[in-house]
Structure formats: structure tokens, C-alpha cells
């Protein structure tokens, strides 16, 4: 299997070289047959890398410990279900996963490329293949997942205990796929510049792929938070860890891009800005992969650390230099002379939103690189922790939520202050009413009050537009449900975006509740003893110990009461892995829409007592609810438009009337 895997990687590298040369030469010399042939090389790369992946997975299943990677990341005691996780548990396997994901996404992008992108596609696919070639070369020369040992050990080391968790089936794949998916919109935009397509030919395809990468990355970040919440055992879900930030920064840049690209699509402005944004997203994603692999800053995600970081840093530098050179070369053609019509318009709101998002990305970046700079310049190791991010990013997030409320009320081109005042009146009154109510109920923290008030403002603005739009359509004879569905369908990017705004509101609720009103208590309990936390009482009922070949598991059974009324039993556990000298915890969580009761066993003492950390985290459930809502919003925004425009923007032949005749009745 090792030989087949390595040979598949060599074939993939050759295919990449051919695809790059064929695409560029074919485009330059006007040879469609060569472009066609190069396109097939792009498709084949997905197949060949799937063969390499299958080789590695089958080596895990066959427990072929002659392959070093298999020996280091699995053992005979590992449950077969974790083979998928073990595949990307280490540096070499994760690069293979990234290469596979990029090859599949590239093939899909090339296959579904719209008619408008015909000229730019050879250049775009060449860029995708350059990036893919980089990953394959790293595997072949520096981090080969198929490297063999001179003598196969009788058993492997086993999978990293922190990875033996259901969240690991989805979180690393979605995060890695999201990071590498940023390559596609970047390749489309840069390919367009190289091909001389400096107007709006790339907009539909760039937006679609930007949105896809954004959604995958967003879900990956959320799944990572869920994993951290349930297994890392510190009671939180986001610690501003460098690796968390590495996934968050490109997501912020992509969020700015998916807003800003709508302005280019709608008004033909912000061309240069969009090119810069998508390039920034690509650099931040590449920087994220460097942080993941290079390990230059301390992180809880040390399982991905390796010594190939410098190669990623060099790649990042080359990519940045090339991209800046291309932008400088085409600067005069892409810079837009058309100004904003009014500072009070949707375009202006999008621009402000972009600036705030980039400000958060820059602050986060500074927090990530400052320890490196400090160590290089002064030889002092510093850690930038949560208070720094909370103090600086917190107010910017509040400003962003405010903009999420006001932005949708603004029309394109220009709005009059009186129209805006009229539109804002009811939502503002509602928000102020809720703030007053919360203040009467005892909520006194200004940040929390502002956050809850702004959340109400956003929701009421969205609902206001939906209600008015639905009522306007119902006057045409439809019932209310049909009118609402018709309204959503009438402008999917807009209403998909509003659904995503609701997901952000849910996130904000969860973050605000758990950040300002979390209660924590450390207790030591004997069996049968009770302790009160908030309005709950926790009884330590019993415990059990299980000795397994690779680990020892302690489980505590607890009963939760409110007063004397039993609410239910929860289990919390702690597992020790001697091979890794590492412990992992399983928090016992009782989750309701109002709050989570969260119990972590800290230590099981010899006298039968156990120490627990008990937390009451308000509104956390809404953070996890936000994930599916975000996906629904992204799908609505991506869904093909009426009239047969497919995902890619390509029109189905049977529904392809001439544009003029199809739309003239609307005009």
C-alpha cells in the first residue's frame, strides 16, 4: 500500500505540472485541445489523490505498522471507526487530506465553471494546480505519509486521545477543507486578472466559491468550539488560541468579501477592494496552515505541529509577492473611478462592515504574531490571552451587530435620513424596551445590555422587512405562507444573508450570556453528598473505574436537583492514556435553552471523594443552534436563481431564452 500511495502522489505531481503547463500554454497560444487536455488532468488529480487516500486508509484498516504514519497514529486497540480520524490526525495525513480536498474542489470548480468564465478558467485552474503541486511536493519530499520503517513494530502508538471524540469526524475536515477552499475564489479572481478579464466576469463564480469556503470554514470553527466545550474540560468554547484564530481570520476576510462582492455585482464598484479582500483571505488561510503545521506559537492543537513550517512560510511569501505583483500590473484597469453615491447607502454600510471585519482580523493577527515578535526581538516569551481580544474586539463586534441591523434598512445608491429614521423607529423602540426590561430584571452590565439590545434591533429589522414584503406580495392574491416563500425566492442572496444574520444574533446571544453571567464553583464531594450551584443542587451518586488496554476511564454518576425535585442524571468522566501521558475529560452537560449545567471531574481521590468544577453557562445552546441556521442561510444564498441559472451561473439549455426577451417584461 505504501508503494501504491507514493506512486499515486508522483502521478498526481506530474498531472499538476501538465495541468499548469497545458492550461497556460493553451490559453496563450489559443489551443482549445490543449486546454481540454489540461482540464482532464485537473479532474484526474482528484481520482489519483483518492487512490492515495484509499491506500492510507486501507493501511490503517490492515494495521500495517510498517508505514511510520500508521504506527504513530493508531494501534491494535483503536476502534475501527476512528480510522477516518487517524487518517488526518498527524501532519502528513492532514496534508494528504488537504490535497484531496483541494483536488476535489478544483475539479468541481472547473467542471461547473460558468460561460462567462471561459477565458479566465485556464489561468484559474493553473493557479489551483500550483497550490496543489505545493502540497504534493511537501508530501513527497518532507512529510510523506507513506514513509516506511525499517522494521515494523508489533503495535502502534495509538491515536491522540483528544481526537477520539465524535466532533473530530467533522471539525478538522471542515476546517481544513474551508482553509484550502479559499484557494478557489482566489484562483478565480487572480486568473481573471492574468487573463485580462478585469471587469465583472469573475464575480458570480468568485462569489459562489467565496460563499462555499466561508460556510465550510464557519461550520468548521463552530464544530471546533463544540469539541473544545465538550472535551477540553475548561468550561469554555473559544480561547483565542492561535490555531483557533488561524481559522477565524480568513473567515473574517471572507465575510467581508461575500458582502463586498455584492456591491460589485450590483453596482460595478469595489473591484480593486474585492481583489484585495480575496487575496487577503487566501494569505490568512495560508498563514493559518503555517500556524497549524509550523507550531511557532504554543497551542492546545499541538497534534498538527511539525517541522515543515518554514516551507509553508516560504510558500506564503511567494504567493503574497506574486499576487501583489499581479494586482500592481492590473491596477489601472481594476481600480474603479466611480465613487459612492451617498455615505448613507447600502454600499457605504457594506464598506464600513468590511472595515470593521478587517479591524477584528488585524487585532487577532497582532495577538497571534506578537508572541513571535516579542521572542525574536527581546527574547521574552509572552502569551496574548483572552482579555486582550475581549477588550479590543468586543466593542468592534458590537458595532458590527449594530451595522447588521441598520445595513438592511438602507437601499442601494442613497437613502434619505428621514426615510432611515422612519425605518429605524419601531426596531429601535423594541430594542430599547427590551433593554429597559432587562435592566429592571437586574441585568446591569453595559456590554451585555448593549449586546442584547442590538440583537433585538437586528431581529426586528429583519422581521420588519419580511413582514412588509410578505404583506405586499399577499396583496397580489397569494396566501401569507406562499407570499413569504415567494419573497425569499425573489432575492435569495439578500434573504439568505438575513438568515445568516439571525445565526450571528444567536451566536451573539450565546457568547454574551456565557461571557457575562457564567457561574463557576470548585467542590470536593463524597459519594452521596450534595452541593448547590446557582439554582441547581448536584449530588455525587457513584463512580466506576474501567481498565482498558490503552487507557483507564473514571466515570462519575451525578444527579441534578432543583430544590428537592430531581431533574435528571448526568455522567462526567476522565480518561488517562499512559502511552501519551495525557488525560482527557468528558464534561457532563445538562443543556437547556436557558442555560447549561456543566460538570467536569478534576480528580478522583483515593478516599472515594472526587473534585469537580461545576459551571452554569447561560444561553450556550444557542451557539450550537446557530450552526444549522448559518448553513440554511448559506444554502439559500447559494441556491440557483429562478430561470435556470445553476449553482455556477450556467443557464440550463431548455430554459435559456435570450436575455433581452426574458427580462424585458420586468423592465
Amino acid at each position, binding site marked *: 500500500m505504501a508503494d501504491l500511495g507514493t506512486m499515486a502522489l508522483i502521478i498526481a505531481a506530474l498531472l499538476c505540472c501538465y495541468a499548469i503547463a497545458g492550461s497556460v500554454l493553451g490559453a496563450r497560444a489559443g489551443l482549445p485541445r490543449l486546454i481540454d*487536455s489540461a482540464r482532464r488532468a485537473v479532474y484526474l488529480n482528484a481520482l489519483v489523490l483518492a487512490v492515495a487516500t484509499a491506500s492510507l486508509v486501507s493501511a490503517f484498516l490492515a494495521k500495517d505498522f510498517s508505514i511510520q504514519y500508521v504506527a504513530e497514529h493508531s494501534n491494535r486497540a483503536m476502534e475501527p471507526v476512528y480510522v477516518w480520524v487517524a487518517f488526518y490526525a498527524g501532519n502528513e495525513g492532514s496534508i494528504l487530506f488537504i490535497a484531496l480536498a483541494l483536488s476535489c474542489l478544483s475539479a468541481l470548480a472547473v467542471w461547473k465553471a460558468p460561460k462567462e468564465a471561459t477565458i479566465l478558467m485556464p489561468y484559474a485552474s493553473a493557479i489551483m494546480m500550483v497550490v496543489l503541486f505545493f502540497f504534493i511536493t511537501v508530501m513527497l519530499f518532507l512529510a510523506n505519509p507513506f514513509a516506511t520503517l525499517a522494521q515494523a513494530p508489533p503495535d502502534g502508538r495509538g491515536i491522540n486521545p483528544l481526537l477520539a471524540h465524535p466532533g473530530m469526524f467533522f471539525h478538522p475536515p471542515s476546517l481544513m477543507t474551508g482553509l484550502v477552499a479559499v484557494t478557489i475564489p482566489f484562483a478565480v479572481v487572480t486568473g481573471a486578472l492574468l487573463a485580462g478579464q478585469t471587469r465583472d466576469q469573475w464575480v458570480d463564480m468568485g462569489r459562489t466559491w467565496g460563499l462555499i469556503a466561508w460556510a465550510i470554514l464557519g461550520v468548521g470553527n463552530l464544530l471546533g468550539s463544540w469539541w473544545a466545550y465538550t472535551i477540553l474540560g475548561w468550561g469554555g468554547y473559544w480561547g483565542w488560541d492561535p490555531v483557533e484564530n488561524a481559522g477565524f481570520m480568513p473567515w473574517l476576510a471572507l465575510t467581508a468579501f461575500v458582502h463586498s462582492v455584492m456591491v460589485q455585482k450590483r453596482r460595478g464598484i469595489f473591484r480593486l477592494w474585492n481583489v484585495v479582500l480575496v487575496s487577503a483571505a487566501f494569505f490568512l488561510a495560508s498563514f493559518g496552515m503555517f500556524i497549524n503545521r509550523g507550531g511557532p506559537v504554543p497551542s492546545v492543537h499541538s497534534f498538527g505541529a511539525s517541522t515543515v513550517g518554514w516551507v509553508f512560510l516560504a510558500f506564503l511569501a511567494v504567493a503574497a509577492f506574486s499576487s501583489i505583483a499581479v494586482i500592481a500590473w492590473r491596477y489601472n484597469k481594476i481600480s474603479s473611478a466611480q465613487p459612492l453615491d451617498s455615505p448613507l447607502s447600502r454600499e457605504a454600510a457594506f464598506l464600513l462592515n468590511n472595515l470593521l471585519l478587517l479591524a477584528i482580523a488585524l487585532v487577532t493577527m497582532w495577538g497571534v504574531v506578537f508572541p513571535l515578535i516579542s521572542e525574536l526581538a527581546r527574547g521574552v516569551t509572552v502569551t496574548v490571552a483572552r482579555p486582550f481580544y475581549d477588550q479590543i474586539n468586543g466593542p468592534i463586534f458590537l458595532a458590527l451587530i449594530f451595522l447588521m441591523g441598520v445595513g438592511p434598512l438602507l437601499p442601494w445608491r442613497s437613502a434619505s435620513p428621514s426615510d432611515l429614521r422612519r425605518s429605524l423607529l419601531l426596531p429601535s423602540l423594541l430594542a430599547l424596551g427590551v433593554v429597559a426590561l432587562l435592566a429592571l430584571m437586574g441585568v446591569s452590565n453595559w456590554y451585555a445590555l448593549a449586546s442584547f439590545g442590538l440583537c433585538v434591533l437586528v431581529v426586528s429589522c429583519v422581521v420588519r422587512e419580511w413582514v412588509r414584503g410578505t404583506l405586499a406580495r399577499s396583496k397580489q392574491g397569494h396566501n401569507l405562507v406562499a407570499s413569504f416563500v415567494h419573497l425569499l425566492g425573489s432575492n435569495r442572496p439578500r434573504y439568505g444573508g438575513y438568515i445568516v444574520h439571525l445565526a450571528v444574533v444567536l451566536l451573539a446571544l450565546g457568547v454574551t450570556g456565557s461571557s457575562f453571567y457564567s457561574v463557576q464553583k470548585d467542590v470536593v464531594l463524597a459519594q452521596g453528598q450534595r452541593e448547590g450551584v446557582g439554582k441547581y443542587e448536584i449530588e455525587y451518586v457513584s463512580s466506576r473505574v474501567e481498565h482498558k488496554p490503552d487507557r483507564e476511564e473514571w466515570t462519575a454518576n451525578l444527579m441534578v436537583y432543583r430544590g428537592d425535585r430531581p431533574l435528571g442524571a448526568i455522567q462526567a468522566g476522565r480518561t488517562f492514556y499512559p502511552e501519551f501521558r495525557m488525560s482527557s475529560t468528558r464534561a457532563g452537560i445538562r443543556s437547556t435553552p436557558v442555560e447549561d449545567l456543566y460538570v467536569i471531574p478534576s480528580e478522583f481521590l483515593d478516599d472515594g471523594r472526587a473534585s469537580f468544577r461545576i459551571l452554569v453557562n447561560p444561553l450556550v445552546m444557542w451557539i450550537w443552534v446557530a450552526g444549522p441556521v448559518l448553513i440554511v442561510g448559506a444554502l439559500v444564498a447559494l441556491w440557483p436563481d429562478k430561470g435556470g441559472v445553476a449553482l455556477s451561473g450556467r443557464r440550463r439549455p431548455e430554459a435559456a431564452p435570450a436575455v433581452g426577451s*426574458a*427580462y424585458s417584461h420586468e423592465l
Partner: protein
Amino acid sequence: MIPLLLASVLAIICLVVVAGPLWRRQRTETRLPGEEPVDIEAALKAAYQEARTLKLELEVGQIPKGRYEEQLGSIRLRAAALLRRKEGLEESMKQLGDILEKEVRTFRERRRAIKGSVDCPQCGTKLGPGSVEHSCVSDTSAEW
């Protein structure tokens, strides 16, 4: 041995699939300099979407009726100009096609007059001097 065999099969499959288009008949693509119909179609689509959004903004009360009429008017003007450009481009494309067709016919007739008879390049049929209007199944004037 088996991995080597599998890898060889994979390499051969790749070679055959990639080389496939290179053996096909060369189809030259002529691209006219300047604006293309696809660009105008995209601009028309954008104008249509702009009108739809404008109507939506009116319905949800974001803009007053007066501004709606004013902006719709400017979109209509832009769309009309685009349609005129599209029609003009289609007309010139048609004229170009006619000229090309005429030149191809003249060339064929002249060649027949010189050689007496020629083989049809598509189906291989012998064409006499009089068979000017020969048409075969695979005949596509676009490829000429």
C-alpha cells in the same frame, strides 16, 4: 508487485484520458476583439436584477415611489442601450457569417473548377464539377 501493477494501470488511464483531446480534430476558435455578446447578456442580467431589487425596496418601504420611478427609468434606459448594442452585435455577427459563408463557397467552386472533381473532406464522397450544393451528415460550415 501488485502495487506497481496498480500504479501502472493508474498511470496508463491518466495518459489515455489526458491525451484524448489531443487526438481530436482541431477546432479553431475565433474571438472577435472588443465587446462580446456574453458581456452584454451579463450586463442585461445585472440590469434586470437591479430592477427586481428596486421593486423589492419599494415593497418593503425602503424607497419612496418617486425615487423608484426615477431609478427604474435610468435602468430602463441602460437596458434599452444594451439591447440596441446586442442587436447591433448580432447583426454584424450575422453579416460576418454571411461573408464567410460566401467566401467558403467561392473557394470550393474555384477549387472544383481547377481540379474538375474533389473529395468531400467530411464524408469522402467524390464531387463532380456540377455538385455545388453537396451536403453530408457531418458537414458543419462552422468548422470551415
